[in-house]
């Protein structure tokens, strides 16, 4: 009660320090740059095999992240996987014949979706589907293929 001013000063300082710490975590640690995902549009792509792709995986164009995978589900009619991606609205001029492939960061890294733009005049809009896709490369299949071809070649 007596040193009310000092007390209020410390509490104020405490709250400021706490908020600053939260800010550091958000901007410095998480690299939050604000507004990155405020304006997005959704596109989908079908893959025969998504491999180890997970939601929130990056969607890259020429190696630069322009979006994220938001959902992965099975199309029960065609037995293939539908990957839903949200793309930053700043890049709304992707050609209709853009292809999507599931790639791996490094040899054993996590997987991401890489977009490869085509040359069509029409652009992908919200809800459109990317028609050209390339499934994930599954390392085990690759190795077994290689072994089989070796075995055949050796005969």
């Amino acid at each position, binding site marked *: 009660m007596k040193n009310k001013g000092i007390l209020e000063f410390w509490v104020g300082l405490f709250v400021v320090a706490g908020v600053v710490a*939260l800010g550091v*975590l958000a901007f410095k640690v998480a*690299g939050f740059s604000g507004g990155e995902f405020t304006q997005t549009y959704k596109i989908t792509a079908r893959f025969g095999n998504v491999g180890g792709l997970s939601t929130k995986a990056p969607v890259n164009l020429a190696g630069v992240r322009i979006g994220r995978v938001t959902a992965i589900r099975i199309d029960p009619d065609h037995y293939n996987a539908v990957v839903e991606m949200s793309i930053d609205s700043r890049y709304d001029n992707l050609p209709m014949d853009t292809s999507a492939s599931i790639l791996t960061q490094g040899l054993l890294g996590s997987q991401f979706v890489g977009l490869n733009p085509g040359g069509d005049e029409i652009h992908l809009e919200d809800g459109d589907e990317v028609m050209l896709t390339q499934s994930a490369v599954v390392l085990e299949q690759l190795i077994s293929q290689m072994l089989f071809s070796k075995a055949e070649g050796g005969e």
Partner: protein
Amino acid sequence: MNAIQQLGAWTLGSVARWGRAAIFLFQTLASCAWVVRRIDLLMQQIFSVGVLTLLIILVSGLFVGMVLGLQGYNTLVDFGAETSLGMVVALTLTRELGPVLTALLFAGRAGSALTAEIGLMKATEQLAAMEMMAVDPINRVVAPRFLAGVIAMPLLAAMFAGVGVFGGYLVGVSLLGVDAGVYWSGMQEGVDLYADILNGVIKSVVFGFVVAWIAVFEGYDATPTSEGVSRATTRTVVNASLSILALDFILTSLMFK
């Protein structure tokens, strides 16, 4: 026969206690509206619950961060992945150690003090005297302390994680020679604002709520003797710590699928 009877008595006792704790929580939450009109009381409690806990949190955070830097580096360097050091340190701190260790320290430092204070006020009839002076002790004593705990916890956890990241930087970058840019960019690459930071904050709010609830309830429910108060204080630390760890498991399994 006797054992069965004891089990029954224990069960009934526990159920009654849970009931009291739940009613008490509702009363406290209802009283929080009253506290808004008495910010000075809240200030005082944030001071004793938050500011006085700050030092131990900052020191612990720094050391934990340094240990993470050291251990992380030694493990990662074997795989040539020391570029991920920043990410490892930051993820560990924001997801787990920040909220959990802060809550444990908070329970030991502030929670026990809250219980002892309220328990002693009860034992010396101060709470009864307030009631007789037409002042509701839940408004006046319990709610400001509870609210201060809920407010202070996430701020303390954030400071813990922030200082910890800096501690990791000290060891990893300044001492062991990881590149500073790589440390930060690896961190920013791997840490997500919503999935990691926000979930960590949610965890610390939940922990703050639970620790503050346990602490004020144990104090208010304490047997009004010196032995009763000391037992209540012990119970606060034990129950709060167990609740934190159990809740952490539940929250983690819900958040990070």
